[in-house]
């Protein structure tokens, strides 16, 4: 079935099963490989994107349900000043270790800061609790979010 999508400000038309998760449409149809597969079950957050600015698990989002929502991925998040600030804070703190989770972490952090521009420590933890980092870069994730919020 032909599906229209708005991704990172661009219109796309894809031929896909409406049940196919947005994650795999991004990766396989649109070649946007920054959004990662970690569990496919909503448990790790590696696949986090924004739908109309709100964080969503793309592995749990059938492409047929995206509708007119604007999809933002890690490749497009730096288009906003906030996205840029978070990315810069991430680089400055050298947050990544293996780096695999970091696209999802950054997407969740941007969504958190959009909602709560000055989060306290508890709000940071609550906002980021859905994103696993196997390398356990959590100390620096907190620091980078604090820096981006300042």
């Amino acid at each position: 079935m032909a599906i229209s999508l708005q991704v990172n400000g661009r219109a796309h038309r894809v031929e896909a099963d409406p049940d196919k998760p947005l994650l795999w449409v991004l990766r396989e149809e649109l070649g946007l490989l920054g959004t990662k597969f970690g569990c496919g079950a909503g448990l790790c957050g590696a696949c986090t994107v924004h739908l109309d600015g709100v964080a969503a698990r793309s592995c749990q989002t059938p492409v047929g349900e995206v509708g007119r929502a604007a999809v933002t991925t890690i490749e497009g998040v730096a288009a906003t000043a906030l996205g840029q600030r978070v990315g810069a804070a991430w680089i400055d703190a050298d947050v990544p270790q293996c780096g695999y989770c970091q696209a999802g972490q950054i997407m969740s952090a941007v969504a958190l800061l959009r909602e709560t521009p000055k989060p306290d420590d508890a709000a940071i933890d609550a906002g980021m609790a859905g994103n696993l980092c196997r390398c356990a870069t959590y100390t620096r994730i907190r620091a980078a979010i604090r820096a981006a919020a300042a």
Partner: protein
Amino acid sequence: MPLRDLYAHPCGDPGGGGVSAPVLSRRGFIAATALAGGGLMFDLRIASAQAAGGVLNAFVRIAPDNRVTIGAKNAEVGQGAKTMLPMLIAEELDIDWAQVTIEQTHADAAIFGPQSAGGSRTTPREWLPSRRAGAAARAMLVAAAAKRWGVEPATLTTRSGRVLGPGGRSLTYAALAADAAAMPAPELEKVALKDSATFRIIGQSIRGVDTPAIVAGKPLYGIDVSLPDMLHAVFVTCPAFGGTMKSANLDAVRALPGVAHVVPIKGDGAPESLVDGVAILSKSWWTANKARDALEIEWDDAAARAFSSETLAEGAKAKLAGKGEAEVLRSGDPDAAFAAAAKTVEAQYHYPFLAHATLEPQNCTARFADGKVEIWAPTQNPEAGRTAVAKALGIEPAAIRINLTRIGGGFGRRLMNDYMVQAAAIAKAVPGTPVKLIYTREDDTRRDFYRPAGWHRFRAAIDGQGRLTALHDHFVTPGTGGKAVRAGDASASEFPAGLGPAILYEQSLIPTNMPTGWLRAPGSNGVAYAFQGFLDEVALAGGRDLPTLMLELLDGATELARGPNQPPFKTARARGVIEKAVAMSSWADRARLPKGEGKGFAFYYSHMGYFAEVVHVAMAEGMPVVRAVWAAGDVGSHIINPLNAVHQVQGSIIDGLGQALVGQAITQVDGAVEQASFDTHPLPRITDAPPRIEVAFVTSEDPPTGMGEPALPPLIPALANAIFAATGRRVRSLPIRPEMFA
């Protein structure tokens, strides 16, 4: 403490599949080639100081604009090697870090020498060879300048990629490229290295070379490999380890929309090479994975299904009660020491199987054509993969090209190359078409090479002064036929062997069908918890705290020899980190903590690193919450990249807390693993990360060693000992469950 890193098995697989490191010249060589357009390439092959017969190669390319490209030969798995190894070369080449571009090399032991990323071995293995590589290249550039200016090389200096001469003369490396290529190569063993006081890159905090690309979402990982006309694959294997395939409804699956191929694979039965299974291929991985719902396979798995965690635990307990099957170490007279003891202490400790749970699931891309295979793999151990693929496919190792991708977490999982062999075998069925195999999370959890479970029964003899006079450990570990499973064997050098107390270390084996492997700090990650947890009991029974007991025991020797290729264990270095951790954590003031709070200490030596750690816990809502962790480490004379070193320690600490506190345990029913994803085999989340982690390094005179592992082992016993201090309850089994405090 044991140094059971991977040294004994340089390729990561004691069962064979070794890196057949070619013996080039014992001194290695350096060759320089002038490049078209005025650049210069150094081909540096240097006999490794520590891996006999091994070679290091790094390509250093100097472009006409004086930018320097350095080949990073080891795969980046989050340990920082892709940044750190080029730092060593750049330092001695005497260039600015800003001039450097880093390129990941492909895998080829014949060119690059050892390329495995495991056992925290990269740093000790490359510390001298990589620096010599840079220094030799620099010497040739200096010689070229000396000749041009008609002066002695000794009168020249270098700085930031320029040779500086008398009277303010200076030339860029690029300008000297063609001449340098013609200079005789210096003897690498004799090339002068910098005085470490003049280091300008080593010791600087340098960010990960790929950090900006990661933040931009660039495709760096194995799972991101995309090739024209590529097919995606899932591979379905027998849930019970060791089952073989009888039949499958292949045609029914072939008929499903979007399915391109369904390929039955006949394996050799070894999980580290190839087990039986069915591959489903499609243009879309999601489609391929969906199609497996329709796949019905009949397995021959009656024998495999006989294994379960329950029977394993029963067997282990029965063995534990008896005498050990083998003596690993008997030193002094333990029987006499127990007979003369003023007091004895006994306890049993247990830890479970664990999965690696790398966030990037196992995956690999392969293309088979004309009898050759090209592979794109996130592997920590490429040469062992080459050997395994060659064997499974019946082709020459030379017919295999392995490209290294960035790796989304390893922790030892990717020292095994099962996914590589599978991808190659599947690709062989569709010649000419690249195939990307991706495990589901469930596949990944259920097809791991698990950290083996272990059971320990300890006894200690204490004399009238409260001193430890004998230690007896009966260790029950998976294995058969007198041989423990991979990463499951006992060590004769386990602390406090050789330090005074009489020792009896025994081992007994119980059969399992669980594939096992190296998990971060293999051989130490579980054992450290058991030994340092029990020694805390011994210390308190003797009226002292664990740091005091450790320092007393360390008085028993200055050095303890280890195996070949391993430096001795030095008690002064252990003492240094213990004293540092005690000081930085205000250990002496812990009696002032409020009720329900406590601090625990542990020390461990593994992978050539000395770490002492203190954990502060407070009980909250029936579970211990970690308030702070202090870690003091000694990994030698230099912390090459302090930023990354601290990251490794922070990560190890939270990793250890996760192993103990969030419920990680792999269990088995009917021969198969029960857990499937992060709900049943959880990882620590940000909410589990302590608000405070303090890291300090004590430097010593020995050469630098690796950071990926040694900070993990002491964390769990320090936590367990803190929980005892806070609650009076001993953690003698992992993981820690809330029921324990009910």
